[in-house]
């Protein structure tokens, strides 16, 4: 199996993100994806797993494979079986096409807002046990992953100005609000909407210097956030549910999170060398996109979110979910430090 995985180039991407619309776009990348998808004769969704040649000849693939690892393996084997039988013309982009692809890739990489000198955290969320009896329902152990980005100056704002043991510091509210609006949300089983600024009832986080060893500051974080929204009658897909059996007449959603964490900041290198922030929370509400509608699982129910320092690999440079069509970290006309 290890050999199988190294015989092709694995690439994962989202169908739509700011400036990129693979399903309808006219970029080189979009046209290639549309070409591959067209050959699958599957109009259900652009989502799927496809093995193809660099010039877009579909070798094997389907939408259904995303739900079945055995189908993925079969597509890989089918694709690899066909590959050696193809001529170079059938497999590869022409010189001009490849040049166009390379130029487009270079432009895309230049546009990346990844904060190389800032703070990048992975944000992992999962339902917490609701009773002492193990829950064996299929999705009960699901988790999801997102990333939180902070520029260098924003990262420094988590650190007390006075760098002596016992110093305390209030982390600027806009940074904590940003966490509450975009990262302390129920993504356990899919997507949901971010919270608007006026849904933030609490956004408090303090840092205390616990120890100083040379240039290294050990910090302890404590805090609380609470977001709460009530359906105002305007239906928003992916946020509220249409009326129906088991849907509360007055829909609400929110997350109440008790925060604690610890970190080590290198004053000389001006960066965190470790960072953990845990949101022990109660969440309520839910919709079809985040999987709560099907089971009418509207809570309140316990959910944990853990933010930790991410690595530097390509896979960990994926932008935060809410670098969305409105713009990075923007919701309802409110901007949180990014353009």
């Amino acid at each position: 199996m290890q050999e199988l995985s190294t015989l092709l180039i694995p690439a994962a991407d989202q169908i739509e993100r700011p400036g990129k619309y693979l399903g309808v776009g006219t970029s080189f990348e979009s046209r290639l994806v549309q070409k591959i998808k067209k050959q699958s004769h599957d109009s259900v969704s652009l989502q799927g797993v496809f093995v193809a040649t660099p010039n877009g000849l579909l070798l094997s693939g389907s939408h259904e494979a995303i739900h079945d690892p055995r189908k993925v393996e079969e597509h890989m084997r089918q694709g690899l079986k066909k590959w050696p039988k193809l001529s170079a013309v059938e497999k590869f982009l022409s010189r001009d096409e490849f040049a166009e692809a390379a130029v487009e890739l270079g432009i895309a990489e230049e546009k990346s807002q990844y904060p190389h000198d800032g703070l990048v955290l992975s944000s992992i969320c999962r339902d917490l046990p609701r009773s002492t009896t193990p829950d064996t329902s299929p999705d009960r152990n699901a988790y999801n992953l997102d990333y939180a980005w902070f520029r260098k100056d924003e990262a420094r704002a988590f650190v007390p100005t006075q760098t002596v043991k016992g110093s305390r510091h209030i982390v600027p509210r806009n940074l904590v609000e940003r966490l509450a609006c975009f990262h302390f949300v129920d993504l356990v089983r899919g997507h949901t909407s971010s919270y608007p600024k006026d849904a933030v009832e609490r956004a408090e986080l303090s840092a205390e210097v616990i120890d100083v060893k040379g240039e290294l500051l050990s910090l302890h974080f404590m805090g609380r956030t609470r977001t709460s929204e009530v359906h105002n009658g305007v239906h928003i897909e992916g946020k509220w549910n249409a009326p129906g059996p088991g849907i509360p007449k007055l829909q609400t959603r929110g997350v109440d999170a008790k925060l604690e964490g610890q970190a080590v900041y290198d004053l000389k290198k001006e960066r965190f060398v470790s960072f953990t922030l845990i949101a022990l929370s109660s969440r309520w509400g839910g919709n079809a996109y985040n999987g709560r509608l099907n089971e009418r699982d509207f809570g309140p129910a316990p959910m944990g979110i853990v933010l930790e320092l991410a690595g530097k690999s390509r896979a960990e440079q994926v932008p935060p979910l809410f670098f969305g069509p409105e713009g990075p970290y923007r919701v309802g006309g409110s901007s949180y430090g990014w353009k």
Partner: protein
Amino acid sequence: MKKFVSGIIAITLLCGTGIVQCADSNSLPLLSTEHAQCRAQVLPSSSEQSFCRIAWRTSILQGIVDAQNNDKPVMIVLMNGHPLGCT
């Protein structure tokens, strides 16, 4: 989605070398018991994170260019939301 990817990887793509820095289980002495327990319950196990061991390209274009340069086919995973981020 992570469950899906983990499932795929567990069955089909068992790679040996770590590409992504996965979460470790280092102790965090400053945390309260309830927050430390929450962290332990939330962070994925190594088997759940086995998809991290694949040298994923994070865009189709990057995959296509690398496939051409390496004389290999490309395997594309397309989702609403990034399959390596939030899906």
